Structures are given as structure tokens and as C-alpha cells.
């Protein structure tokens, strides 16, 4: 089995760029990743691309070939869609392709254009990650669905909005030096609690923003990296994916995310590690409650214990396992289809010591990226390790 190396990373600034097309965003991120890797576009054998709602946002389907063209790659290209986990599943397919020996050089990335839709339009667009018949027609929104999960969590395990507020405060603080982040402003617990409610018990500051942006990584085989003298010291050593029923009402749990648990267990077994080996994590915190559910599913905390982690300081940059050092979806921003690969890029940069928060955390050897789709009916987990 070929070892998969991350040869380069690239991303645009995340934020409000309503006038920028998806193709322009991906061109910037993809070319940055290729340049960072020192790989010629002509060497790329396939583009694996994640996007959720190009049809709704910019009247654009069939985005794979378009994005390959945008970065000067003349090779097959495929779009993957798994709601907010779109580029996480693209990474997984790329990893499998390198491992089987089928490919040596792949460009993997994602893009989402969202702010041009306005708040109502984006709320509608995001809602279609839920069940149309049984959820959307009942007034379900993306924040609404996570609010249902948050209330169920409080009912089952205790805790309250103040605990959640600490997650938002932490992630905003983490984003301060991240030049690509949408929000680079510190917030307080009181600000989070006093903010307008979006879907009670979640307020404006419990929610990720609506974001435009793109991300990309170049994945290569170990053999290709050595043959071409690439600087690629980080490997993707574990990959996992889990699934669950689409509609919340059909799930066994409202306050747990078994799809993420399955993805994590598979990725850890694949890498030959346990949760105890994880030193840093980028997790899918589209809402504050989502980070709590994620760190529990990753095995970093038992069910019911993750809620207090940020408040206790354990997941801050000073804690044992810092979570979302880039600011997370919450402060870094969440251009849906770009998020999974942006997480992979962030972990890679943390392991190579080139991340804006590297001075805070020193040398790290093992990190995980957790990407979730919808209310976690899809989830991917990837383990990255320093191997050279």
C-alpha cells in the first residue's frame, strides 16, 4: 500500500466575497497548493473536488472539469457532494486512489460561494442537507437542527448555553493570528449569551458565519515525493467515514453523532493509533454544540463530558489537546464545500510548524481532521502524522 503524503496546501481568505466566482476562488487555492508543493499542474492525474450547492448558489453544476481547467490541469476531475463534508469525502477518495497505487499526484479541494445568496437564500440552501419531506417542510433550518440536538444534549447530560459560549470564545481567540480567518476579533461569554437567538438555544455567536472561500491540498505517493525531492513530511495515515439516517427523527440519538464515532474508530484503526495519541484536532464546529459532539465522537471525551472542555481550558491553545487552533468553522468561516480540505491543510501546517498558532503549541506529531455533513448523517475523519 502506498503511503499518502501531503505535498502542499493552499487556501483563499475566508469571508464575504459575493462578487467572486467559485472558479476564481478555487483557482487561487489550487494554484497556491500546487506552488507550495512544487508540483506542475501537468503532473496532476485527477482532481477530487468538494462542493455542496453550486447549482443553487451560482447556477453551476458539473464543477469537476471546470475546476481542473481553472488550475491548468488537463485530467479527469470529479465533484463530491456530502453537504458540509463534501471535501472530506473527496480527501478520502483521493487517499484511497493513492494507496491502491492507482495515482501518484492528486489535487484535492473544495469551494463554496454563499454570501451572494443573502442570509435567507443561504439558510434555504443549507437546509436542503436535511430531509425535504420530513424536515425542511416542517420549518427545519440548519441552525434549527443543531438547536434540536443542543436541547437534547442539555436534557440528557445537563449543562447550558454558558458552557457552549466558551466554545465560541475559544475559537474566536484561536483565530486572531489566522490571516485567512473571516473573524479576527475576540469575543466574551456575555457577548455570546446576549447575541440575538437564531434558533433557541443557539444564538448568532453559537453559529458559524456564511462564508465564501476555497481550499486545496496536493496529495502524492511517498514514491513520487522521494523521486522528485518534494518536502512532504506529513502523511495521511488514517481515513474513516461514517453514516447515519438523514433525518434527525429517524436517529437513535439526538445528542450523539455515531457517524463521527464510526469514522474516528475506522481512521484510528487504519493509522494504528488511539484517541490518546491525538495531540491536536480540527473539528466540525458549525455550531458550538457541534464541537462538543465532535470531540466526544473522536473519543477525546466521554459522552456528556465534552461540553465543559472549553470552559475548563482543556481544548484551548494552552490545553492538553487544542481543538480548532485555526478558529474553527466558527471564526475561520465555513465555505461548506471547502471546509474539509481546509481542516486537512490546517493540521498539516500545524505538524510542519508553519501554522499561525505553531509558536503556541510547539512540535506536534499526530493530528486529526473531522468533517461532518448535515446533522452528521455523513462524517469523515483523517489522521495526519509526521513521518519524515
Amino acid at each position, binding site marked *: 500500500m502506498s503511503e499518502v503524503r501531503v505535498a502542499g496546501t493552499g487556501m483563499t481568505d475566508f469571508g464575504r466575497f459575493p462578487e467572486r466566482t467559485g472558479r476564481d476562488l478555487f483557482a487561487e487555492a489550487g494554484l497556491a497548493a500546487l506552488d507550495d508543493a512544487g508540483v506542475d499542474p501537468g503532473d496532476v492525474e485527477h482532481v477530487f473536488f468538494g462542493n455542496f450547492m453550486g447549482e443553487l448558489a451560482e447556477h453551476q453544476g458539473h464543477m469537476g472539469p471546470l475546476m481542473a481547467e481553472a488550475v491548468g490541469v488537463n485530467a479527469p476531475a470529479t465533484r463530491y457532494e456530502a453537504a458540509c463534508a463534501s471535501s472530506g469525502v473527496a480527501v478520502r477518495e483521493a487517499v484511497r486512489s493513492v494507496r491502491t497505487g492507482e495515482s501518484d499526484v492528486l489535487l484535492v479541494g473544495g469551494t463554496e460561494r454563499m454570501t451572494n445568496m443573502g442570509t435567507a437564500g443561504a439558510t434555504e440552501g443549507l437546509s436542503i442537507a436535511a430531509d425535504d419531506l420530513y424536515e425542511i417542510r*416542517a*420549518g427545519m433550518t440548519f441552525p434549527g437542527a443543531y438547536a434540536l440536538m443542543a436541547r437534547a444534549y442539555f436534557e440528557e447530560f445537563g449543562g447550558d448555553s454558558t458552557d457552549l459560549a466558551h466554545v465560541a470564545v475559544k475559537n474566536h481567540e484561536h483565530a486572531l493570528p489566522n490571516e485567512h480567518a473571516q473573524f479576527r476579533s475576540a469575543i466574551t461569554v456575555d457577548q455570546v449569551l446576549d447575541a440575538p437567538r437564531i434558533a433557541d438555544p443557539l444564538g448568532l455567536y453559537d453559529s458559524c458565519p456564511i462564508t465564501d472561500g476555497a481550499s486545496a491540498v496536493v496529495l502524492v505517493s511517498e514514491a513520487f515525493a522521494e523521486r522528485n525531492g518534494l518536502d512532504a513530511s506529513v502523511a495521511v495515515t488514517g481515513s474513516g467515514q461514517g453514516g447515519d439516517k438523514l433525518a434527525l427523527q429517524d436517529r437513535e440519538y439526538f445528542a450523539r453523532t455515531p457517524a463521527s464515532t464510526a469514522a474516528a474508530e475506522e481512521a484510528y484503526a487504519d493509522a494504528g493509533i488511539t484517541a490518546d495519541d491525538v495531540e491536536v484536532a480540527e473539528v466540525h464546529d458549525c455550531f458550538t454544540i457541534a464541537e462538543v459532539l465532535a470531540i466526544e465522537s473522536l473519543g477525546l471525551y466521554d459522552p456528556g463530558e465534552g461540553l465543559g472542555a472549553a470552559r475548563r481550558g482543556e481544548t484551548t491553545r494552552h490545553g492538553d489537546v487544542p481543538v480548532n487552533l485555526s478558529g474553527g468553522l466558527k471564526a475561520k468561516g465555513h465555505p461548506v464545500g471547502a471546509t474539509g480540505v481546509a481542516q486537512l491543510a490546517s493540521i498539516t501546517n500545524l505538524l510542519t510548524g508553519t501554522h499561525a498558532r505553531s509558536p503556541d503549541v510547539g512540535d506536534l506529531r499526530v493530528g486529526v481532521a473531522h468533517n461532518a455533513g448535515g446533522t452528521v448523517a455523513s462524517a469523515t475523519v483523517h489522521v495526519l502524522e509526521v513521518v519524515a
Partner: protein
Amino acid sequence: MSGDERDGEAGGSERVRDAGFDDLLDAIEAGEGHYLRCSNDHGSLPPRRVCPHCGDRDLTERPLPDSGTVSTYTVVAVPTPQFADDAPYVTAVVDFGTVRLTGVVDADPEAVETGMTVGVTVGTSETTGDRLVRFVPR
């Protein structure tokens, strides 16, 4: 293509029927709501050919209990455009035993709580007039 053409003259924004789902709404409206039960006693909602819990294909219609209890709920303040005039409203998941339904609770947001008993009916969105599952406190 203009918006008028897209919507169609006769039906306005009326949807094409979704078999199974609209049958269920009709049945609930008539006070004869149903769900599907597999031979292993798992519940699910139509349209389905397979039990989502065990894969059994032997599904039979059973009467939906007359009332259920609120499992979890939220007060949606920022809605999709289809619910613009409805907001704020309460979306809840209600437990009817072996099956759960998501719908809008016809009650003041302050009055809704987990565990409360509600009946099920069919109402309409204030914004679009589209039919939807509504829960009425008992």
C-alpha cells in the same frame, strides 16, 4: 423564463404530489394518520420499501397514536424564505412510540417544553400556504 411561467398559472406555487408523503398528510387530516411497521416492530414513515432500521421489506400500515410527546424542540428565529412570515415558530420532534415526526407546534414558544403531550394535525405555512405537520398541545 419568467417567475410566472415557472410557477404555472393554475397551481400557483402548488407542489406536485409526493406519493406516500401526501397520502400521509391526507390521512392525518382525516384523523387517520398511519406509519409503517416492519415484522421486527420498527416504525418508520412513508414512502419506504425497506425498514431503515433492519432492512426488512415486510412493511404494513399501522395507526399513528393519537398523541405523542415532545422529544426536543427549537424556536426558529431565522427561517428559510418559505417560512419568512411564520417566524418565530417552534419546530419540534415528537415521539409517537416506535416512530417520530417533525413538525411545527401551534403554541406560544414560551409554552413549549420537552415532554409535553401534543396531538398531530395538518396545517399550512403562513408564508406559502403549503401543508405541513402541525402539533397541537393537549
